[in-house]
């Protein structure tokens, strides 16, 4: 059984690539980095590692217990590695999708989206509270099939390493064949966008084919047509690290506390933005409203000149 953590070996590379991207930003796009944002992102990464050391043991115990009752023994055959990697990436797609579609999971995953910047340091903005979501249960089918937990952990490590380089604006598009199959900076920029068109799209880790298969793929539009805004629907507006880590947990628990009994569970399990009184918007509601606005703008484009004097500062909407 190999004793190997690929992420540990990748960390020096992460640091060097962040440095290289900063130098690129210095000459090409100084607003791509912000020192306080970078500090928060990297502190997230360090805290996430510590949280993993403190809390990851529970998941390992569950996996080892599940492995004892596995259906098959796949072992350490060479072919098991690529198979495990692909199935682990499929698992990642679904755990990631839940991370956006259930507030319990979102309370943890929101950490990764809380920066308004999109650079390689954002990739390291990893959650401290993932263990509280029990998201590791998504990997149990692989364990029960007979993949050894250590093999799954190593494949997961390589998956995480792959996802590092796609957090950049320095790369526009990869070759067409690559964009068709693999997750790329372009696809993942869409995932981090708050533009209504892009909300809750492109959940893939390594292979973008999962999004195409399950109907969640959205291609990036040219920046001049639709510039991307990164972050979350209600931007934090704060560089406070602890607030960034725990704000959604605090908000969710407050909502559960205040909600009528019959709605409490919904505030835990339903999508972010859901409210029992309709006072907030989910990503689906935001997209639907935006699409209605776009249709209205397209339908009344000729009338806009006439109505402009009534709203002297309100220019025409374009793709938001």
């Amino acid at each position: 059984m190999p004793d190997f953590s690929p992420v540990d070996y990748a960390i020096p590379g992460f640091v060097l690539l962040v440095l290289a991207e900063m130098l690129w930003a210095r000459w090409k796009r100084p607003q791509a980095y912000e020192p306080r944002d970078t500090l928060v992102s990297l502190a997230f990464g360090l805290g996430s590692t510590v949280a993993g050391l403190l809390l990851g043991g529970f998941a390992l115990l569950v996996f080892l217990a599940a492995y004892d009752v596995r259906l098959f023994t796949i072992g350490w055959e060479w072919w098991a590695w690529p198979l495990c990697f692909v199935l682990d990436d499929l698992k990642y797609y679904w755990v990631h999708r839940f991370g956006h579609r259930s507030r319990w999971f979102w309370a943890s995953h929101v950490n990764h989206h809380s920066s308004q910047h999109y650079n390689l340091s954002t990739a390291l903005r990893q959650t401290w509270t993932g263990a509280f979501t029990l998201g590791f249960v998504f990997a149990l089918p692989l364990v029960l099939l007979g993949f050894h937990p250590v093999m799954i952990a190593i494949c997961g490590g390589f998956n995480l390493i792959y996802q590092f380089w796609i957090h950049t604006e320095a790369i526009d598009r990869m070759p067409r064949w690559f964009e068709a199959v693999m997750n790329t900076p372009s696809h993942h920029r869409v995932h981090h966008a708050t533009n209504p068109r892009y909300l809750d799209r492109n959940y893939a880790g390594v292979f973008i084919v999962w999004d195409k298969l399950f109907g969640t793929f959205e291609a990036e539009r040219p920046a001049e047509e639709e510039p991307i805004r990164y972050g979350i629907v209600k931007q934090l507006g704060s560089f406070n690290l602890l607030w960034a880590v725990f704000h959604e947990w605090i908000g969710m628990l407050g909502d559960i506390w205040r909600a009528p009994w019959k709605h409490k569970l919904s505030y835990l399990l339903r999508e972010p933005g859901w409210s029992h009184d309709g006072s907030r918007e989910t990503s689906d509601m935001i997209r639907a409203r935006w699409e209605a606005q776009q249709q209205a703008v397209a339908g009344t484009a000729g009338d806009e000149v006439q109505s402009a004097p009534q709203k002297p500062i309100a220019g025409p909407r374009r793709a938001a």
Partner: protein
Amino acid sequence: MDSQTLQLIGSLAAILVLAGIAWVLRLGQTPRIEGEARAVALAREADSGFDPVEAALSGDGAAALLADSQGRIMVLRPHGTHFAGRILDHGTRAAAEGGMLTIIPADRRYGPVTLDLGDSAQAWESRIQTLQRPLNA
């Protein structure tokens, strides 16, 4: 000292060095809001459901107040190299003095915002102080 502690200290040092390099390279200069049209566009970006019909820009371009046709008011200010907006809730505190308006949103983590609004500071103060709690909140 065990290897994990060393790794932790090394990582912490690397973090501080990288953030320091970003600062030395002068990355991430704070932007200004250049005109009302820009403030309107930023407000729409901050909340795609907020369509401003009125804007007041701070004299230094560091922040803006916007109102929509429903009487809602949004405050907008830079956050790093970008902007962050808040639709002001009932419970927001506002105080005008000498043409300066200081707003403390009910969302305390957003922080206070001071705008140089000149003669209109008092009027905006009154409007913010009379914000009503939404009927369905």
